[in-house]
């Protein structure tokens, strides 16, 4: 049996743990304060959709005295870890699925009281309210969780007896992995509910929805096809990108931003003792029309796998130069390090002179990472990254303190 544990309005709940006055409407904005990425129930009740642009609803939110926060991912990340650790006190079989969701596996079905005990402990230990859906398969447990949230009961167990009726009332788009696009395709074929999808022929599912869709259909029938993945998959690529506080036209400024993303990504892959074999750079243009953002991208395959920041910055700047258009207003750039291979497996290039130089590069990066870890991010950095608090930095005007990760920002009690 799978239990999907999902934190209710997670980011908002995190803010509320440290700020009990936040009883009313609360919204949390995305990086850059652009979109609304978390809503308290009160904000949901105002009819403000998930992901809505902040500026569009600013007035409505103000009128209802909504407290608005910039996202505080440091806090949310730590609170997420705490929730996951608490869940592991019930079973070692926990798959962290996202920052606010985890699948738990139990060999047998649990009583509702047992699931309520899980909710209770997570609430007491971390302050975060969660909902739990339990069923035979992951897809069904997602559905059960959806129902638990909708009914506000906190716990829903889908048992064989009442599944058909539940599926019959479950809209196709809300099934895990279907989404709007697949949903409208299925609707065009007359399939509107989970029950109808469960009962399609295998051959039909395979033909129209590939093996992924077939698996989904089987999961709806209660045949588990998606096992618990306990270990996060080894990373194949790392992306580093952020939106700018305001559009940028200057090439040098773009270079600085891009270089700092390269540095960050390199640091990440070095942490996993990986090297990249592939580098992509992309830039998103801020068009006059607010909804059209063309993305330009260019990539190269590296002559040898590397995690050496200066080299990758040089390459990234070359790629960026091929994308750059004079006068264009850029709203975002980013880079991807792909084809990650473990350092030991790295294939050597026939024409590279190895030995000392590689060793020196390795040493230098080790020192860089150690100093940055010890004395704070970016103590040592490439000149290409520009000044420490750059112009292009994100807007995060309304961020709450890092209550659990910075000594000078912890909670004060009287």
């Amino acid at each position, binding site marked *: 049996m799978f239990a999907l544990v999902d934190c209710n309005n997670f980011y908002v709940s995190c803010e509320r743990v440290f700020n009990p006055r936040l009883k009313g409407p609360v919204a949390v904005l995305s990086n850059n304060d652009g979109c609304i990425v978390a809503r308290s129930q009160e904000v949901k009740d105002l009819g403000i959709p998930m992901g809505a642009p902040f500026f569009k609803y600013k007035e409505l939110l103000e009128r209802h005295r909504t407290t608005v926060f910039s996202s505080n991912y440091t806090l949310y990340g730590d609170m997420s870890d705490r929730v996951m650790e608490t869940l592991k006190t019930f079973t070692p079989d926990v798959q962290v699925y996202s920052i606010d969701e985890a699948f738990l596996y139990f060999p047998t079905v649990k009583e509702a009281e047992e699931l309520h005990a899980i909710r209770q402990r997570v609430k*007491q230990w971390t302050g975060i309210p969660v909902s739990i859906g339990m069923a035979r398969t992951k897809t069904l447990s997602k559905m059960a969780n959806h129902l638990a949230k909708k009914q506000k009961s906190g716990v829903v167990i889908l048992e064989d007896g009442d599944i058909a009726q539940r599926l019959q009332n479950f809209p196709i788009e809300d099934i895990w992995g279907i989404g709007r696009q697949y949903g409208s395709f299925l609707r065009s074929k007359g399939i509107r509910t989970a029950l109808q999808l469960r009962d399609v022929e295998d051959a039909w599912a395979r033909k129209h929805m590939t093996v992924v869709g077939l698996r989904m259909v089987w999961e709806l029938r209660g045949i588990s096809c998606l096992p618990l993945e306990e270990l996060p998959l080894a990373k194949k690529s790392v*992306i580093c990108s952020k939106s700018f506080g305001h559009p940028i036209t200057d090439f040098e400024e773009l270079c600085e931003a891009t270089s700092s993303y390269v540095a960050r990504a390199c640091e990440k892959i070095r942490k996993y003792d990986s090297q990249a074999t592939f580098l992509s750079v992309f830039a998103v243009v801020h068009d006059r029309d607010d909804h059209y953002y063309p993305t330009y991208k260019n990539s190269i395959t590296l002559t040898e796998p590397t995690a050496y920041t200066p080299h990758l910055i040089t390459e990234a700047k070359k790629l960026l130069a091929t994308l750059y258009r004079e006068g264009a207003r850029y709203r975002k750039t980013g880079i991807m390090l792909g084809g990650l291979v473990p350092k030991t497996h790295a294939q050597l290039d026939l024409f590279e002179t190895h030995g000392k130089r590689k060793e020196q590069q390795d040493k230098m990066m080790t020192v860089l990472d150690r100093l940055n870890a010890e004395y704070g991010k970016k103590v040592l950095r490439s000149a290409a990254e520009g000044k420490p608090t750059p112009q292009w930095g994100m807007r995060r005007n309304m961020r709450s303190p890092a209550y659990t990760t910075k000594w000078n920002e912890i909670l*004060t009690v*009287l």
Partner: protein
Amino acid sequence: MKQVKEFFKPHGTQTDPLPIADSPVQAGFPSPADDYIEKRLDLNEMMIQHPAATFFVRVEGDSMMDAGIRSGDILVVDRSLEPVSGKIVVAVVNGDFTVKRLVQKGKKVYLCPENPQFPNFCVDPESDFEVWGVVTYVIHRAI
């Protein structure tokens, strides 16, 4: 492009793996202490029983002075412990955080300061009251 999701653990308690009793001296005599090395004492280990449920908060004011809690001290707060009468707790009263001793007399619940200059506070059943966590240690700077 594929979305990469990843999570970083902030540095919390540092439970180091067992130390390797490996003498750095290649030539010469091995340290006679090599066989006796134990893990160095770790304050986290002593003060934190439930890392997932433990938070640090800073005290402002002297209402708990006689309990050895001074302004500026840091409290280790364990949310997993049951708030029973007699424990020092961090509570939320009408939206404000406060540290006091929890005392239950019959059906009445009191939040008691430990400083004669502060009055006891009886929790109004109507008020918005919640125990946030139980204080397990007080960290006081001595220099």
